[in-house]
């Protein structure tokens, strides 16, 4: 069974800190790994990763994929209170349609 595991499940830090969120996966086939930010209900897209070792960056957020070790990390530097959200990792297991398999999410809280 395809599985995505995120850690930690919950993280509380102070504004300005740097955080690293982890995502490991076990899938029969792999097409891509995606990161989403979920603040209230609608997840919003952050990154799609398909190749190992190539960092994707957007402002203070960056992510990298290791297809050999089957994991990805999401880094957020100089955190702000607006970064508080649940961060979801999902894998596209290459089953025709993009039927994403999601992890449980990491709830990140940034305190001022």
């Amino acid at each position, binding site marked *: 069974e395809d599985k*995505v595991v*995120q850690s930690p499940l919950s993280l509380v830090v102070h504004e300005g800190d740097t955080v690293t969120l982890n995502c490991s996966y076990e899938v029969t086939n792999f*097409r*891509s790994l*995606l990161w*989403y930010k979920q603040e*209230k*209900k*609608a*997840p*919003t*897209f952050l990154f*799609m990763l398909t190749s190992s070792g190539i960092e994707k960056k957007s402002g203070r957020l960056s992510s990298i994929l290791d297809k050999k070790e089957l994991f990805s990390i999401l880094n957020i530097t100089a955190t702000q209170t607006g970064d508080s959200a649940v961060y*979801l990792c*999902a894998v*596209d297991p290459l089953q*025709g*349609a*993009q*039927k*994403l*398999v*999601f*992890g*449980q*999410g990491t709830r990140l809280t940034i305190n001022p």
Partner: protein
Amino acid sequence: GAGVSQSPSNKVTEKGKDVELRCDPISGHTALYWYRQRLGQGLEFLIYFQGNSAPDKSGLPSDRFSAERTGESVSTLTIQRTQQEDSAVYLCASSPSGFTDTQYFGPGTRLTVL
């Protein structure tokens, strides 16, 4: 432009009643997905529509769940004889053509079954 919209935003129903949840995808998006998110959990895939092809229903948890989509427009997810375990947020997403495209999510419908 308009994003994915869903209605209602919240629905409270009694056990045993039927409910219908609606999703309006982004105009021009041919692929539409339904997911379920239970409290504190990740999203679970339910069903996928691509254009006029037969839907992929492999994620539907039971025969009480069904969904329809007319062409490339609105979709309705129906849950018959609701049970308390159906309580969750139901999220809809659309993408331009499925497969490798980014999915854009709606705000979801929070369903509470009493």
